[in-house]
């Protein structure tokens, strides 16, 4: 049986996207990694060819597709072994906030650009002092007539340099209950008082333009509030199932890529006069990793199917996020153990794979947060 049923339309989409990646992404990755960002142009190209925001209705320039298109997008980017081009973040995590909670004029104004690649989006939740603890957020949003004044700093914001539009979470200082104080705001690049900080120097994801964002008496129209006042916390929580599922898929897809590469390597490279793959120890290591990858893949496929059906799988998604992102790092490490010292240079794809995989256990809620959520919903 196939747990995830893909239609011909899905498969066609995948093949077109793969060819796009081979043509427009893979040849540029080394340059992007050196530049510490992807080209602004590739976003527009992706948009023009219909690879962004596949879940948006066609009226906004999307495909009107289900989440399986998003899955294909994540998997095909993972196959390029780089995590800089954060299209899944844009298409499957940030833009859905606008699609779900935006009013008609917000949608009209922003969604077509999101789909065409003219608007790159980011979401700004995390703060320097707060990490995974949303309730201790300190950025403020105060109403002043028809305007809202934002103050505060956000950090670790993916697409932080390239973004044209940021969804910012901030608190009403007058509201004591931290869970009812947060609202979401749409802030455009160029708004006075909104400053993009320097790009952060990271272990990996070199071509991902992660940055700090600063808001200093940044005034935006009150109409730029996304959804109802004080509903920010709930909106964030509501979207987290899909965000974490995205991470889980990235973990499995990354592991698949690295294991495939290593398996091929072991068949081709000899040590002591025979292919590495003839070593029983290497065989067992590859089989053990393949087993783990199969387990993760089957689990994630089922969760995607459940998610597409609209089921609440918060416990299982939390589990998948932690297990599959750890899988990515574990497979990277163990593949390197097999390849050995010659795998330690950047010429070996496992090196970038390992560096890029490491952050997945941290972002979108650390794996410890995931376990805490699962424990809570298991009644422990």
């Amino acid at each position, binding site marked *: 049986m196939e747990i995830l049923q893909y239609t011909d339309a899905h498969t066609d989409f995948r093949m077109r996207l793969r060819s796009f990646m081979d043509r427009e992404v893979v040849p540029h990755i080394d340059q992007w990694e050196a530049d510490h960002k992807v080209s602004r142009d590739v976003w527009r190209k992706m948009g023009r060819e219909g690879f962004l925001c596949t879940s948006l209705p066609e009226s906004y320039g999307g495909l009107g597709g289900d989440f399986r298109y998003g899955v294909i997008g994540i998997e095909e980017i993972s196959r390029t072994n780089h995590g800089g081009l954060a299209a899944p973040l844009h298409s499957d995590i940030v833009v859905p906030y606008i699609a779900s909670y935006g009013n008609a004029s917000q949608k009209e104004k922003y969604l077509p650009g999101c789909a065409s690649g003219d608007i790159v989006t980011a979401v700004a939740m*995390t703060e320097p002092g*707060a*990490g*995974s*603890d949303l*309730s*201790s957020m300190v950025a403020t949003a105060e109403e002043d007539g028809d305007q809202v004044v934002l103050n505060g700093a956000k*950090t*670790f914001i993916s697409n932080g340099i390239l973004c044209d539009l940021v969804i910012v979470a901030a608190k009403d200082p007058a509201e004591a209950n931290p869970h009812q104080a947060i609202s979401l705001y749409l802030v455009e690049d160029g708004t006075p008082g909104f400053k993009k900080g320097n790009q*952060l*120097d*990271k*272990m*990996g994801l070199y071509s991902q333009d992660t940055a700090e964002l600063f808001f200093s008496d940044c005034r935006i129209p009150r109409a730029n509030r996304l959804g109802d006042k004080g509903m920010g916390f709930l909106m964030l929580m509501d979207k987290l199932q899909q965000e974490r599922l995205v991470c889980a898929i990235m973990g499995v897809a990354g592991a698949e890529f690295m294991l495939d590469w290593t398996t091929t390597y072991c068949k081709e*490279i*000899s*040590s*002591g*006069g025979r292919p*590495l793959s003839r*070593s029983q*120890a*290497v065989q067992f*290591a590859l089989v053990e990793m393949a087993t783990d990858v199969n387990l993760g893949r089957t689990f994630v496929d089922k969760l995607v199917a459940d998610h597409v059906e609209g089921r609440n799988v918060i416990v299982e998604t939390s589990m998948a996020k932690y297990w599959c992102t750890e899988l990515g*790092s574990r497979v990277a*490490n163990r593949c*390197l*153990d*097999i*390849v*050995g*010292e*010659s*795998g*330690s*240079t*950047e*010429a070996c794809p496992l*090196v970038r794979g*390992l*560096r890029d995989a*490491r*952050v997945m*256990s*941290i*972002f979108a809620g*650390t*794996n*410890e947060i995931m*376990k805490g959520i699962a424990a809570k919903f298991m009644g422990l």
Partner: protein
Amino acid sequence: MVTLDKSQKEILKAASEFAKGEFDKDQALALENANAFPHDIWKKAADLGFVGVHLPEEFSGGGLGMLEACLIAEAFCRKDSSIGMALAMATSGAEGLVRYGDADQKKAYLPRIAEGEMQCGFGFFESECGGDLAGVATVAEKKDGHWVINGTKSHVWNGGAAGVYLILGRTDPEASPGKGLSLFLVDADQEGLTIRDAERRLGGNMVACADLVFTDVHLPAANLLGKEGRGLPQAETIIEETGILIAGQCLGTAAGALDRALAYVREREQFQRKLAAFEVTRQKIAGMALQVEQARLMTYGAARCGDAGKGLDRLGVMARITAAKAAVAVADEAIQLFGGYGYMKESEVERFYRDAKVADLTLGGTIHLKNKIAGRVIGKIK
């Protein structure tokens, strides 16, 4: 600490103080980003006797043992994994000169190595033979009282930076694969030797790394190191002695990652409590501390064994694995405890992790090392 004598404790303390005074975080970040060797620190460390502490006194060394060398590597890597690694690896291969060199060879190189005038390196592996030294293809042919060397050595640490290399080549093409190999000393400025810089690596980037290409390199007969035909066991001994120094580095890297994690969890608050107050944080810290002590006792035990002249035997390889795996795991957990900040270069622990993983891969991965242990534990099968 329990098993150190007074002078060893003093060396550890002196090395820690040197590192504290001389290593600078911003400088380290810059050097690592630029793949640059910490030249000035190396000079100062040599002046104070921290380089070559285990080399003989008559050749400007400290005349002490592998344990003392490990302690210095530990203290340095604990303060900065990359600088520590660069300083510890600067003498890489000198152990082979001590063990197999004749008086002239020692005199020619060891003082300069111990005094911080020259780095040393060894080129044993070749990409074609993987971890299997018996399959070395580099040829050393005897011609008119000279040796003529042709071949390529890959991933040579200090490659391009060292003044002299220990090179393993085949001197007897007729002999069975494991026999007929010999070691040679090759000066860096030798004609016919080309350096092909390796790409930036996952870690260990303050140490130069290059492939060495030998094209009709002519060496005088006197450049043979040790006995002709005994190159393989000699190379393996050098690898093992280097291995225990790597264990010392990894111990330090693990301890340094733990130091940083401890400082962070004591300070950082989440959900209105210090991270250190969460039981899960405490379980992690305990696991990290456990691995650091395992690495410490294994490393000290193996080094002491070597210093007692009993040979490192299986304990050396075991210390190597224990310490390297501890360093990788502890640094990895430190990143996780730091959260998003742990992924930033600023946090240092991500660099400790990368350095640890490269140390873990150096001179043979886990499968290879375990096969070595098995060979010694199982012995000959009847």
